C-alpha cells in the first residue's frame, strides 16, 4: 500500500520540527506561575485591598435557571446588607452578630457571578475562573447535589471556602463532606425524620409504599432515608423503581403501580422530573383511587415553591418537606421577606433564603475570626450556634459541617389566597427530632490547611 511512503516521510524533518517545538516550550519563561502560595499566606489574600470579592456560582441556563436567578437576587441583597446599604435584612435579627454593616473586616464587598449550567464540569470551570482569575475569597450557590459535591471538592483542593446553596443529598455532608464545604440546607435524612410522625398521624401505620426514584445519587439517598422512616412506622415497601433522569414521560413507570397493591406513592424526584411525574401520576387517577380500603396518597419528600408553581393544582394536598417558607411568622423570616419583597416585588424562595443566610454566615465568621485566613474562618463556623435567621435555633455541626435546625413539613395548599400562597405549613418539626449521629455516613473532612 502506498501508505508505506508515509511513514518514511515522517522521519527526520518532522522529528526535528517536533524537537524545535519542545525546546521552544522549554525556553518559555515559567514566571507566569503565580498559583503557589507560601505557608503563612493563603490563596486570594485581599491584603491591603479596600475590597473583598465573593463568587456566586448559580445555574443561569438549563432547567434550574429560575432557581438560580432567585439565588442571585438573594446574593445581591446580602452584599448590599453587608455593605450597610438597604434595610439590613437579617442583620437586624441575627444573634450573635459580629457584622457591623461596613463590609467584611472593614473591606467593601464586591461580587462576581458565573453559570453552573447544573453540570459538574461547567460548575467547576466557573468556580475555577472565580478563584484563579477574579480572586474570590468564598464562593456559593448551586441547585443540585452533584454540582455541590463536585465544587466542594474543588474548594478543598484550592483552599477556598464553599458555602453550598441548594443541595439535599446526604452525601454532601456525609461521605463526600469536605473541610472547606458548608451546608445550611437540610438533607434527605432530615426530611425522612421530619416526615415520619406526620405520616403516622395522617396515614396510619399500615400502608404499602411504592417508590419512584430518580436514578442517581441524590434519588438513592432520599429513597433510602424515606424507606427507613416509613418502614420504621410499620409500612411495607412494595417496590422501589429507578427512573431515568429527565425521562419526560413517566407513564411506563406509573402503569405498574395501578395493580401493584400499593396504596401510597413516594416520588423521589426533584425539579422538572417531579413536576412531570406528579402531573402524570395524577392524570392516571392515582389520587382518586381506593386501595386496601384506604385512599391512595402521594408523597413528595422534597418540595420547593418553584416546583409547586410548575405542578400547579396537581400539588394540592400532597405532603412534603421544605427548608424554609416565606410564610413563616418569626422575626427573622419576616425581616428577610420584607427586604427581599420590597426589593424585587415578590417573596424569596427557599433557595434564595439559604444562599442569603450562607453569605451572612461566612461574613460573620470572618468578623469573628478577625481574618480571612480560611482555617481560622472554618474554625469559627464549626460548631457556630446562631438564631434569628428564620429557622429557629441553628447549629453548624463541627463533625460534618451540616446545619441542624427545625424542618418544615408542608402540604400543597388546597385553597391559596394569592399566587404565591402555594404551600401550607403542617408542622415545624423541632431540631431534636431530625438530629442524627454524624458517623453513620462515614466520609472525612480532610485537613484545615491545604
Amino acid at each position, binding site marked *: 500500500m502506498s501508505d508505506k511512503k508515509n511513514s518514511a516521510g515522517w522521519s527526520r524533518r518532522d522529528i526535528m520540527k517536533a524537537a524545535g517545538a519542545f525546546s521552544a516550550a522549554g525556553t518559555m519563561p515559567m514566571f507566569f506561575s503565580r498559583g503557589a502560595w507560601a505557608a503563612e499566606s493563603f490563596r486570594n489574600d485581599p491584603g491591603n485591598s479596600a475590597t473583598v470579592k465573593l463568587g456566586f456560582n448559580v445555574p443561569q441556563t*438549563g432547567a434550574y435557571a*429560575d432557581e438560580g436567578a432567585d439565588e442571585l437576587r438573594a446574593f445581591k441583597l446580602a452584599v448590599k446588607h453587608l455593605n450597610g446599604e438597604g434595610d439590613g435584612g437579617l442583620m437586624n435579627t441575627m444573634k450573635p452578630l459580629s457584622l457591623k454593616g461596613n463590609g467584611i473586616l472593614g473591606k467593601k464587598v464586591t461580587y462576581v457571578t458565573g453559570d453552573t449550567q447544573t453540570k459538574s464540569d461547567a460548575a467547576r470551570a466557573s468556580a475555577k475562573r472565580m478563584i484563579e482569575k477574579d480572586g474570590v475569597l468564598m464562593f456559593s450557590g448551586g441547585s443540585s447535589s452533584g454540582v455541590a459535591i463536585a465544587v466542594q471538592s474543588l474548594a478543598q483542593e484550592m483552599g477556598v471556602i464553599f458555602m453550598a446553596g441548594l443541595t439535599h443529598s446526604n452525601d454532601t455532608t456525609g461521605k463526600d463532606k469536605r473541610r472547606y464545604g458548608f451546608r445550611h440546607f437540610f438533607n434527605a435524612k432530615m426530611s425522612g425524620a421530619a416526615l415520619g410522625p406526620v405520616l403516622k398521624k395522617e396515614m396510619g401505620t399500615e400502608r404499602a409504599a411504592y417508590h419512584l426514584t430518580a436514578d442517581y445519587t441524590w434519588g438513592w439517598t432520599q429513597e433510602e432515608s424515606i424507606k427507613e422512616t416509613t418502614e420504621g412506622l410499620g409500612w411495607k415497601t412494595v417496590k422501589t423503581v429507578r427512573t431515568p433522569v429527565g425521562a419526560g414521560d413517566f407513564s*411506563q413507570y406509573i402503569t405498574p403501580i395501578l395493580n401493584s397493591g400499593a396504596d401510597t406513592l413516594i416520588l423521589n424526584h426533584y425539579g422538572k422530573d417531579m413536576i412531570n411525574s406528579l402531573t402524570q401520576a395524577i392524570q392516571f*387517577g392515582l389520587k382518586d383511587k381506593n386501595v386496601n380500603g384506604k385512599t391512595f396518597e402521594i408523597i413528595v419528600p422534597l418540595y420547593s415553591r418553584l416546583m409547586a408553581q410548575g*405542578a400547579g393544582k396537581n400539588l394540592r394536598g400532597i405532603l412534603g418537606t421544605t427548608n424554609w417558607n416565606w410564610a413563616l411568622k418569626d422575626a427573622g423570616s419576616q425581616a428577610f421577606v420584607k427586604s427581599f419583597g420590597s426589593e424585587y416585588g415578590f417573596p424569596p424562595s427557599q433557595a434564595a433564603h439559604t444562599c442569603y443566610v450562607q453569605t451572612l454566615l461566612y461574613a460573620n465568621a470572618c468578623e469573628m475570626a478577625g481574618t480571612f485566613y480560611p482555617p481560622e474562618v472554618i474554625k469559627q463556623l464549626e460548631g457556630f450556634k446562631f438564631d434569628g435567621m428564620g429557622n429557629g435555633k441553628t447549629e453548624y455541626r463541627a463533625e460534618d459541617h451540616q446545619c441542624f435546625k427545625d424542618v418544615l413539613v408542608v402540604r400543597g395548599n388546597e385553597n391559596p389566597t394569592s399566587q404565591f400562597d402555594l404551600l401550607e405549613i403542617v408542622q415545624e418539626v423541632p431540631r431534636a427530632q431530625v438530629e442524627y449521629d454524624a458517623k453513620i455516613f462515614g466520609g472525612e473532612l480532610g485537613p484545615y490547611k491545604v
Partner: protein
Amino acid sequence: MDAIFLQILNGLDKGGAYALIALGLTLVFGTLGVVNFAHGALFMLGAFCSVSFYKLLTLSKQVKDESITFFDAFKEQPYLEIWFGDYGTAIIDYAVPLSILFAIPVMLLIGLIMERGLIRHFYKRTHAEQILVTFGLAIVLQELIKSFFGANPIPMPPPEIVSGSAPIGALFGLGESVVYPWWRLIYLAFSGIVIAAVFAFLNMTTYGMVVRAGMMDRETVGLLGIDVERRFTVVFGLAAVVTGLAGVMYAPILPPDYHMGMDFLVLSFVVVVVGGMGSLGGAVAAGFLLGILQSFASMNEIKSIFPGIDQIIIYLVAVIILLVRPRGLLGREGVMED
C-alpha cells in the same frame, strides 16, 4: 394479564406521540433534504402557543391580598369569568383544545418565515452548515421563550372532564385497576387523525403527488415547469404546523418549559432514522415500535433481568435495526447517505 394489557396500551400511546412528534421532521428531511435541528424548537413553540393562549384567556382582574405588606400578592379572577360567568369558566377549561385553532395560523406563519428567511438558502449547502444554522436558530428561539416565560415549567391543565382516567378495564372485561388517562387516549386518537390527514394530503391530492415527486427527483419536477420552491415552502409550513400541534396537545402531559424541544430532538431523530429516511410510513412504524419496546423494557420483571435496560432500549433498538436493515425500516436508497 392486566399488567401486559396496560403496558401494550402504554406502548401504543407513547408510540403515537413519538410518531406525531417526529412526523414533521421526516417531512422536512425527506422533502427538502434539510437536517433541521430546530425541529425540537418548533415542538416547544407549539406547546407555548397553548401557554400563551391560556394566559390570554386567563387575563385576570387582580385583587390585592391585603394581609401581605412587603410585596404585592394577588388573588386573580379571569375577566372571562367575570364577564361571562360559567361560560367563561368553561372556555378557560377548554383552553388546550381551543388553542389548536390559535396554534395553526401561528405555527404556519412561523414555518413560512423560517423557510423564506433562512432555511431556503440552505437547501444546497452542506449538512454541517444546515446543522449549525438550525441549531443556532433553535437556541435563539429557546432563549426568547425563556426571557418571556422563565425557565420553570408552566402547568397546563386538560379540560376538567378528561383530566382523570378512563375505566377501560371494565370495557375489555379486565380488572378494575386497568385505567388509562383520558387525555392520553385523546392524544393517541389525535395523532392517528393528524398522521392520516398528512398521508391523505400527500397521497390523494395532486398537490401532494407533486411534492412526493419532488422528494424523488427535484430536478425533473422543476423541468416540468412546476414551481417546486413554492411547494417546498408549503411543505415546511405544514411540517411546522404538525409539529406545533403535537406540542400543543402534549402540554397537559408535560408542563412546557423552554428547554423541552432539545429533550425531544434526539428522540425525533432516532425515530425518523430508524424508520428510514424519506419514508413517512417508516417513521410511524418506528414510533410505535420504539414506544412499545420502551414501555415493556420499563417493566420491573424485565428490569430485574437486565438492569438499566429501560435507560438504553431506544438506542439499542436503533443500533440493531440499522445494522440489520441498512436504511432503517422503510428507507429509500440514496437519501442522506452521503
